[in-house]
């Protein structure tokens, strides 16, 4: 019997990518300020979930360290979601100090000015004492926003050169109906001493999985027909990329995992490639031994898509060497308590996997920031990283 080794199908422009990437220069404060200006302020980035503001008047405050500001995401009484600078237009006080809720009016605690959920100035206290007032200048400052599936994106440039749909490109379609089936089962926040590029890079290749995750999910990917765990499908887009991870058909289900999957849905580290009801964006190539997809929404959102679960990781740089990780775990809504117990099995295993993934970030940053080596060397199974740096360089106007 012959064994057919899985070959990676690459889609997109795989030529002219940097395979040896100069890295030390990217880890300086000066370089990060360029990235903040030319990448983060020129990109559509995710700020909230539409489901976080379910009703007219619902709002959520999002402090955005990357932009050194605070945003107010509100669903208006007209049911439209808008994003504003979270600021009173009188003298600049932060309008809502934090949290989420539902209001008909946002009242500034400083002098009592009020704003409606559509961002309009509603009331000025002692208005007669103001001279030459132009109320049109005093509505909440609007931040450009758009909704994709359940995600609210913002663009901090007042005049984005592309719509959200244009920015998302191939990712704009193909995910209809996917997100509605899930409930959030966990959320983690952590601040790390690591450059944001290194942080997102460490999650966008599968090469590491055989080594870093040897203690927690030793046999979840690859198998006899794919011992090197090559990705069956990799797609490089204008800015974003996605790949599918290969399941191991011979993964050994045992112990509590066997119990959990008898009463609940299979998820990491066991997979099913049943694509029933999955929209075309999931497992695009319809690979038979499919485990999950990894999608980087350039620059800083990573989504992992399985058929019973998905994971969200937002990477928010604070400066050149500090990042805030926002990690959330979702599974298909449980229909009974047994399914919930099984979800907790997946989650408690997955948490250990995440702790392993995070374990290289600060160590790698320390050595690269020290200038111990000047470049990183990337394989074709790390082509998503090659692509990341090409996209970043293009936005930064760097020609190599």
């Amino acid at each position, binding site marked *: 019997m012959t064994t057919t080794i899985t070959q990676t199908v690459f889609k997109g422009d795989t030529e002219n990518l940097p395979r040896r990437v100069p890295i030390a220069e990217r880890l300086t404060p000066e370089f990060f300020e360029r990235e903040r200006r030319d990448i983060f302020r020129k990109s559509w980035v995710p700020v909230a979930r539409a489901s976080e503001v379910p009703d007219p008047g619902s709002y959520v405050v999002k402090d955005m360290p990357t932009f050194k500001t605070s945003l107010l995401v509100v669903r208006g009484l007209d049911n439209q979601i808008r994003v504003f600078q979270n600021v009173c237009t009188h003298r600049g006080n932060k309008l809502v100090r934090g949290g989420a809720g539902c209001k008909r009016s946002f009242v500034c605690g400083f002098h009592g000015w009020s704003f409606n959920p559509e961002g309009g100035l509603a009331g000025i206290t002692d208005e007669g004492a103001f001279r030459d007032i132009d109320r049109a200048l005093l509505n909440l400052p609007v931040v450009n926003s758009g909704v994709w599936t359940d995600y609210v994106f913002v663009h901090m440039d007042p005049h984005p050169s592309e719509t959200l749909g244009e920015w998302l490109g191939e990712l704009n379609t193909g995910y209809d109906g996917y997100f509605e089936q899930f409930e959030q089962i966990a959320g983690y926040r*952590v601040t790390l001493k690591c450059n944001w590029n290194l942080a997102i890079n460490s999650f966008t290749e599968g090469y590491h999985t055989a080594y870093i995750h040897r203690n927690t999910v030793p046999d979840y990917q690859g198998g006899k027909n794919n011992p090197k765990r090559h990705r069956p499908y990799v797609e490089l887009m204008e800015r974003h990329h996605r790949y599918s991870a290969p399941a191991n058909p011979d993964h050994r289900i045992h112990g509590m995992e066997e119990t959990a999957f008898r009463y609940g849905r299979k998820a990491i580290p066991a997979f099913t490639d049943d694509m029933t009801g999955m929209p075309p964006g999931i497992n695009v190539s319809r690979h038979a031994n499919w485990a999950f997809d990894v999608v980087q929404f350039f620059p800083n959102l990573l989504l992992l898509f399985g058929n019973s679960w998905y994971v969200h990781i937002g990477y928010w740089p604070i400066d050149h060497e500090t990042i805030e990780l926002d990690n959330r775990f979702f599974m298909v809504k449980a229909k009974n*308590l047994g399914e919930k117990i099984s979800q907790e099995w997946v989650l408690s295993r997955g948490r250990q996997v995440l702790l392993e993934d995070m374990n290289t970030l600060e160590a790698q940053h320390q050595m690269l920031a020290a200038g111990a080596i000047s470049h990183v060397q990337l394989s074709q199974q790390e082509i998503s990283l090659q692509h990341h740096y090409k996209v970043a360089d293009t936005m930064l106007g760097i020609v190599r």
Partner: protein
Amino acid sequence: MSEAVLPKSFDDLERFVPEWSLESEAERHWKRVNSDLPIVRAFHDTVNARIDAIYAYLNTLPILDPKRLDPPDRRLYYLAVTTVEMSHPLDLNWASTEIEDKFPAQRVEMIPIPGR
């Protein structure tokens, strides 16, 4: 008569409730990490022997939010969830209840999720 600790027919597990019926993810994580493997094994193996009965019983309940269950059902649910947490070092044959090569979990904020 005092209130039952666990639903009838799970009396044999009552002794584990104060220490092991833990309602938050962080509590369960740290209970595992801070417990010796033989203690974890003794707890896990005893509850695991009843795990099918626990699943079967809890699946008959119409409520999906464990925090809204009657106290005996709620304690049983979280006893099962703690058992699940304890299964990993045993099923993966770790030398102790935590591995060395991992990021320090004390630096990770585990955010409580409604309905968990």
